[in-house]
């Protein structure tokens, strides 16, 4: 189909979809209205389990089983990206070149790295009482490590980040979530029921299993993002295409079309 034909087809379809969407929006509850039956019940359930952050209560207590699925999607995606971005036959690894970084940026990176790391761990640990939690904090922790790549170079990052512990950490985070669920079954209730002592409302130890599940997710997300970014950075920095097929611009693509 020509580009023009495709665009015309899209515009016609989009007009129909737009009309249907507006018709559906007219039937939605009024924006800003006060009728939120599920929200009110979720807040009451969060209070009952002494979890100050109602969003964390929904994610790690009321919908804890769904979050296991969500965590598994993340785990599978990291695994898939690693398989897709592996070093294929014919590709060579070259040592990363040393990069020149201006001293102010280097100093700023070195100062910010521990701060960012601490903020990430704080966000993971306080998931049950403040906005945040394992998913958000895990990403901050992983990003903090990559300040090394910005402030120094890829060699420095690779020295501080041997990949295998992070791969193990990724799997351990996923496993810790399942193990927590199995322990609640062994304690005599349903899978992932909040059976731990609930603690005092609004303190670091409140929320029962929410704390454990947050930590498990934080560990998995942090390690998973490190592994994921490492696969992409390897492709960009270290892995070299086999000779004769390097980079393949449009001209080469046209030439190589015959054997593709």
């Amino acid at each position, binding site marked *: 189909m020509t580009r023009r034909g*495709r665009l015309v087809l899209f515009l016609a379809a*989009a007009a129909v979809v737009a009309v249907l969407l507006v018709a559906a929006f007219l039937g939605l509850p009024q924006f800003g*209205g006060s009728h939120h039956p599920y929200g009110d019940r979720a807040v009451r359930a969060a209070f009952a389990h002494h979890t100050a952050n109602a*969003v964390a209560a929904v*994610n790690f207590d009321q919908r804890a089983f769904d979050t296991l699925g969500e965590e598994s999607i993340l785990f599978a995606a990291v695994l898939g*990206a690693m398989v897709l971005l592996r070093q294929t036959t014919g590709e060579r690894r070259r040592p990363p070149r040393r990069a020149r970084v201006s001293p102010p940026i280097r100093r700023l990176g070195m100062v910010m790295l521990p701060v960012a790391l601490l903020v990430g761990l704080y966000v993971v640990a306080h998931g049950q009482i403040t906005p945040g939690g394992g998913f958000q904090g895990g990403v901050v922790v992983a990003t903090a490590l990559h300040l090394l790549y910005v402030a120094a170079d890829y060699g420095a990052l690779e020295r501080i980040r041997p990949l295998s512990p992070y791969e193990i950490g990724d799997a351990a985070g996923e496993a810790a979530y399942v193990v927590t669920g199995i322990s609640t079954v062994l304690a005599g209730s349903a899978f992932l029921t909040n059976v731990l002592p609930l603690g005092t409302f609004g303190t670091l130890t409140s929320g029962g299993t929410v704390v454990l599940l947050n930590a498990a997710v934080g560990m998995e997300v942090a390690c998973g993002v490190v592994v994921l970014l490492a696969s992409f950075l390897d492709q960009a920095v270290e892995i070299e295409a086999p000779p004769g097929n390097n980079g*393949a611009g449009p001209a080469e693509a046209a030439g190589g079309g015959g054997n593709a």
Partner: protein
Amino acid sequence: MTLLPYLVAGWIFLIGVYGLVTSRNLIHTVGCLSVTQSSTYVLLLAIGYRDGGTAPVYAALPKDARVVDPVVQALTLTDIVVGATVTALLLALVTQLHKRHGTVDPDELLALKG
């Protein structure tokens, strides 16, 4: 009754699909898919909004405070995580496509197949 927040979500969805249809670069296509998906964040949060409501985090709030719906916020978090993983996987696929076929233009890829 204001429809504007819902209409914004619908508009983001359609503009994302427009980008998908007209894209000439698969990296751009993946970006457009993220835009399309972000319309669901806007829609979910718009449904959960309550006039004058604050974040449903009670650490520093009285227990009868007026808050927005925490259920849709939790769903949005799930949505974002899944979106990020899908983006990562698709970008990995695009990287490999570029290595094998030397192009990231979807139209040229069709030509190579035939």
